[in-house]
């Protein structure tokens, strides 16, 4: 037993004790960091959505938003499922394309384009947006959400912004 030494341990003993602590700490970190990273990985991962091809340029209607329904592969962890979604594509005055989701920013109902009144109307609480997605009236707090758009070889691609 080393009781007599306990109050003032010899330098050698202290060195060994510290060495063991350092080793244990190294091992703890080497294991703890990967385990924590593994646990947190879904929260840390910036998963960029893939570009989804939704239509040909020629399919766009002139002067007003075109409703486009498209299929895409939805990733949920390790599960892949096919889902359908809807978006509106509008050509702005300067020729640039804007893609809008059809989710009303109030409570998420599906808005639709009304050609007669030239506005998006929401069936739930009477929200209305103009062709660029800006709020015209009703409860929606902000404009319709935009999706990233690009055109390659006359095909329109979108992606969650």
């Amino acid at each position, binding site marked *: 037993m080393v009781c007599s030494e306990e109050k003032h341990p010899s330098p050698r003993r202290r060195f060994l004790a510290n060495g063991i602590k350092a080793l244990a700490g190294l091992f703890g970190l080497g*294991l703890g960091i*990967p*385990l924590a*990273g593994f*646990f947190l990985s879904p929260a840390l*991962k910036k998963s960029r959505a893939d570009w989804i091809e939704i239509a040909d340029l020629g399919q766009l209607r002139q002067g007003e938003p075109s409703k486009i329904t498209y299929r895409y592969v939805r990733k949920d962890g*390790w*599960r892949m499922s096919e889902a359908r979604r809807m978006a509106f594509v509008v050509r702005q005055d300067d020729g640039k394309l804007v893609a809008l989701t059809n989710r009303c920013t109030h409570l998420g109902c599906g808005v639709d384009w009304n050609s007669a009144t030239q506005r998006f109307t929401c069936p739930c609480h009477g929200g209305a947006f103009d062709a660029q997605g800006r709020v015209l009236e009703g409860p929606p707090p902000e404009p319709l959400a935009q999706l990233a758009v690009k055109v390659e070889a006359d095909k329109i691609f979108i992606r969650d912004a």
Partner: protein
Amino acid sequence: MSRVYKFLDERLNLTPLIRSIADHEVPEHADPSKHVSAFMYCFGGIAFFILLLQALTGVFLMLYYVPSPEDAYASVNYIENETAFGGFIRGIHRVGTTAAVVMVSLHMLRVVLTGSYRKPRELNWIAGIFLLLLVAGSCFTGYLLPWDQKAYWATTVGVNMVASIPLAGGFLADALRGGSEVGALTLVRFFVIHVMFLPAFLVIFLAAHFFMVRRQGISRPL
């Protein structure tokens, strides 16, 4: 750290408790710093350490693993390729399996070589045999979980060995598979056996194993 300990010790009087658990002199014949050959007395401790690693990595793997035929392979694939450190953690668990079997075997070999299984330690030898079977059972049940071809056929072959037991074999094999074929029920069963039943018995037998070592001391070589 020492202040935290002092705070707790003042209130809970921990020191005698820790002394009785952790503060014991290593007998000379089992001290590698005195006899190099005494390193073989470390095998059991290393085996235990590996089992702790297996438990730790296993719990974390359960964050992503799903024991169903539709999801099992995809979830293992997800662990390997889409989580941070997933390959590393699953790697520890996978290699740790082999390491555990190696260390348990070496530990057993040491016990045989030093004759430590003899009176008065027969009961601890028996507890050790149970531990060996529990480790082997963990290897066997864990092997099915990735649900790939190797897993499927290894389990098919393994359960067929059980089926070759006279009289009770067919029944035992069906009980193990949860039916007459390796399928969804087998996968869930093996998963639950792997993460609940076997670990529970491992804890019980390890506790008994260590209790007996502490009561009887480390055996002297022949």
